[in-house]
C-alpha cells in the first residue's frame, strides 16, 4: 500500500529561506543605492566601533563595514550561483554519461569520481587554489573541482535505478530509442533531485569559497568578499565588528540556501529524497 499521509510539507522553512535569499539578492542588485558610503572610501582614521554613523563600524583603513558587507553580496552571491551551476553541469554530464553507457565507461568515470571524492575536499581545493594563484576565479575553479562528484554520483544513481524501471521498459517497447526513453522519462526524475542538491550544495560551496578567501587563497582585499573580511577581523580580535558582521552575512546566506534545500527535499517523494541523502 502506498500511502504517505503523514508528511506534511514543512513550508515555513522554505518561506524563510526564500525571503532571506530575496533580501540578499535585492541588496546585491541595489547595493549602490543602499550602501551608506563608498565601500572603498578610506579615512585612515581609527578602527571605529559601531556608531550612529557607521552602523557596523569601520575597518583598518577606515572603510565603512556595513557598506562593504552590502557590496560583498555582489561578489559572493553571483559567484556561488556560478559555482553551483558549473559543478551541476559538469557533474550531471559525467554522471549521465556513466549511467547511460555503463560498462567500462561507467567504471572508469566512477573510479575517477571516487578518487576525487576520496581526496580530502578542502585540501584539494586549497592546493589547487594555491597552485593557480590566489584569485577569486581560481578559488571558484577549485571549489567546482571538488564539488562536481556529488552531482555525478546522484545523477548516475538516478539513471541506473530508473534505467530498468518498468516505465522506461514500457517506453522502449513502444518504440522509443534508449536515448529518447532515458531523456524523456528520466529528465523529469533527475531534474528535481539535482536542483534540490544544487540548493543544498550552494550553501556548502559558499562556505568552501569563503573559507578559501579566509585562508587568503580566494578573494583578496580590497575586494569586499565576506570570507576575506572575516580574515581581516581575525587579525583584530578586539575589533569584534570586523569579523562578526561579514560572518553573519555568510551565515544567513548559507542558511537561506540550506533552509530552501531542506524544505525542497522534504517535498520530493521519499525515494528520491533517499537517493539525495546518499
Amino acid at each position, binding site marked *: 500500500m502506498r500511502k504517505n499521509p503523514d508528511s506534511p510539507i514543512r513550508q515555513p522553512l522554505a518561506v524563510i529561506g526564500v525571503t532571506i535569499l530575496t533580501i540578499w539578492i535585492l541588496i546585491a542588485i541595489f547595493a549602490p543605492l543602499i550602501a551608506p558610503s563608498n565601500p572603498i572610501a578610506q579615512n*585612515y582614521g581609527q578602527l571605529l566601533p559601531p556608531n550612529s554613523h557607521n552602523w557596523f563600524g569601520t575597518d583598518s583603513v577606515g572603510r565603512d563595514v556595513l557598506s562593504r558587507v552590502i557590496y560583498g553580496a555582489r561578489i559572493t552571491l553571483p559567484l556561488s550561483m556560478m559555482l553551483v551551476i558549473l559543478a551541476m553541469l559538469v557533474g550531471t554530464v559525467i554522471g549521465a554519461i556513466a549511467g547511460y553507457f555503463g560498462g567500462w565507461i561507467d567504471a572508469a568515470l566512477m573510479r575517477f569520481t571516487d578518487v576525487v571524492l576520496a581526496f580530502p575536499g578542502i585540501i584539494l581545493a586549497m592546493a589547487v587554489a*594555491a597552485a593557480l594563484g*590566489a584569485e577569486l576565479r581560481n578559488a571558484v575553479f577549485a571549489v567546482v573541482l571538488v564539488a562536481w562528484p556529488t552531482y555525478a554520483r546522484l545523477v548516475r544513481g538516478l539513471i541506473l535505478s530508473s534505467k530498468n524501471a518498468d516505465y522506461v521498459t514500457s517506453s522502449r517497447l513502444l518504440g522509443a530509442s534508449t536515448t529518447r526513453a532515458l531523456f524523456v522519462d528520466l529528465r523529469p526524475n533527475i531534474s528535481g533531485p539535482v536542483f534540490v542538491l544544487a540548493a543544498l550544495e550552494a550553501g556548502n560551496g559558499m562556505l568552501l569559497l569563503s573559507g578559501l578567501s579566509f585562508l*587568503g587563497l580566494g578573494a583578496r582585499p580590497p575586494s569586499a568578499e565576506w570570507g576575506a573580511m572575516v580574515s581581516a577581523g581575525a587579525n583584530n580580535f578586539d575589533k569584534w565588528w570586523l569579523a562578526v558582521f561579514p560572518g553573519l552575512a555568510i551565515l544567513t546566506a548559507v542558511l537561506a540556501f540550506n533552509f530552501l534545500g531542506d524544505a525542497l527535499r522534504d517535498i520530493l517523494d521519499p525515494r528520491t529524497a533517499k537517493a539525495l541523502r546518499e
Partner: protein
Amino acid sequence: TSSSAASGRVLVIDSEFNHKTLDPQREFEDGGNMMDRAIYDTLLTFKGNDASKPVPSIALSYNSNADSTVYTFHLRKAARFSDGTPLTSADVVYSYGRLKNIQGNPSSLMAGLTATAPDKYTVIITADQPDTAVPVKVAGPEFGIVNSKMVAAHGGYALVGADTKDKAENFLNTTSAGSGPYMLSKFSLTTEVDLIANPKYWGKQPAYSKIVIRNVTQAVQALDVQKGVANIALDLSPKQTDSLSGVNVTAGVSTTVWFLYSNANPTISSVTSDPNFQSAVRYALNYSDLTAFAGKGSIQAAGIIPSAFQGSLKPADATKQNIALAKADLAKTAYKGEPIGLRYWGGGAWEGISFDDFATVISSQLAAVGINLKLEPTPVGDALTTYRNGTDTMGLWFWGPDWPDSSNYSQNFGPGKKVGLRAGWAASAAPEITKLINAVAIESDPKKRAAQYRQFQLDLNANSPFIPLIQSPAILVSTKSVIGIATNPIWKVNLTELK
C-alpha cells in the same frame, strides 16, 4: 626534554614564527635571530635598540687597517661553550668557514671575506675589497660561534663543499653548541621553542631561567598579553595596541623601509619606465597619510637608507606631496589612464602592516591624480618570483637590512644591482650613481662616507624607479613585569638583556 623550570622565572613570548632553522649559519629570519642571539655569542654585538655601533662580546677589542681590508679581533679567554669547552679562535674560523661554504641564505655575508687564526685568541678577517661593514656584519647572529668539535662530530663541515657535506643542521636544531646565556631545550618550526639558562655561561646569569617562545597569530598575541598568558607580544601593529590595557608598549621605529618601484625597463612598460611617470607617482603620494595608516612609531622614509644608519637623510630632505607637480609630470607622459599592475604579497603582513591594506591606500591616493592601479595581490612565492625576475610593472615591497650598515643599500639599490634589476634599472642607466656607489665602497673615512650615502639617496629620490615610503614601526608589547625591553632591528628583542 628539559630540566624543570620551577627554580626560576619563566618568560613567555608570543611570536609569529618565521625561523626555518636554528643553525646559526643557516638561519636568516629575524625570529631565528632572536633565538640564536641568546644561544650563540658573536665576536661583537649590539646593545639595546642600537644596531649601528658594535660593542665587544667574545672579542674584547678589534682594529682594522687603513683601507678596511684587514680586521684583527682579540678574543676573551674566559669564554666557554655550554659543554664547558673553552671557546677559541679555531671555533670562530670554523664557524665563519661554515657560514661561507654551506652556501645557505646568509652565506653572501661572508662573500669576499676570509677568517684566519694566527693564535688561539686572535682572529683575522681579510676582505678581498675594502669592506667597512665587517664589524657590524660579525655582530649578526649568522656569525654566531659554534663549538667546532661538537658540530664536526655531528656531521658539521666547514670547508669548501660544505653545501653538500655539512649535515649538522638537525643536530643544531636539537642541541645548542653555543656559548651564549641560553641553551635550546625544545625546538619546533611551528609550535614552541624553549630556551633554558646555560648553567656554565661564562658571563652573568640571565634573569629568566626559562624562555618559552610560542608561535601565535597576531590577533591572539593581543589577547594573550592582556591576559598575562604571554609576557611579550612581538608582532602587534600600532592599531592593535591602541586599545590594549594593562600592558607596556615599547614603540620604536624599525629599520624596515617600504618602497614602491615603477619598472624602469621600457620593454616591461613604456609608461612606468618614463621618469616623468615615476616622478608623478612620487609627488602624488600623501606621505603623512601613509604614516598615519601605518600607525604610531612609523615615520616617512626620507631615503632608502633607514634613519638609524650612517648617512641617512634628514626628515627635511624627504619628498613632499605636490599634487600640481604630479599632475604636470603625468601630463608629460603618454599615460592615458589605463590600469597599471601593482604586484605585492597578497595576504602578507610585516611588522603589523598588511600589504593588502597598504596597497589599497596607495592605489586610492594615486587615483586622485589620475593614476589607475590594478592591484595584483599574489601569494608570496609567485610574487617573489616575478619580483625577482624584474617583470612586474610596479611593486610594493620592503627591505630589511642583511647587515646593519648603509653599504647594504648602496650595494643593492643601485642601477644594475640586485634590487635595481628587479625594478628594471639597467647597469648603464645612471653612470653617476654607479660611480658614487663604487666610491663609497672603498671610502674609509666615516664622515665622507656619510656624505656620499646622502648624495646617493638624493640621487635616487630625484631620478630612479624607487620611491621610499615609510619605515614601519617596531612595537613590543609586554606585561608590566618585564623590564629592560628594547626593540632591535636585527633580533627584535635581545632576550639576554631582559630583567
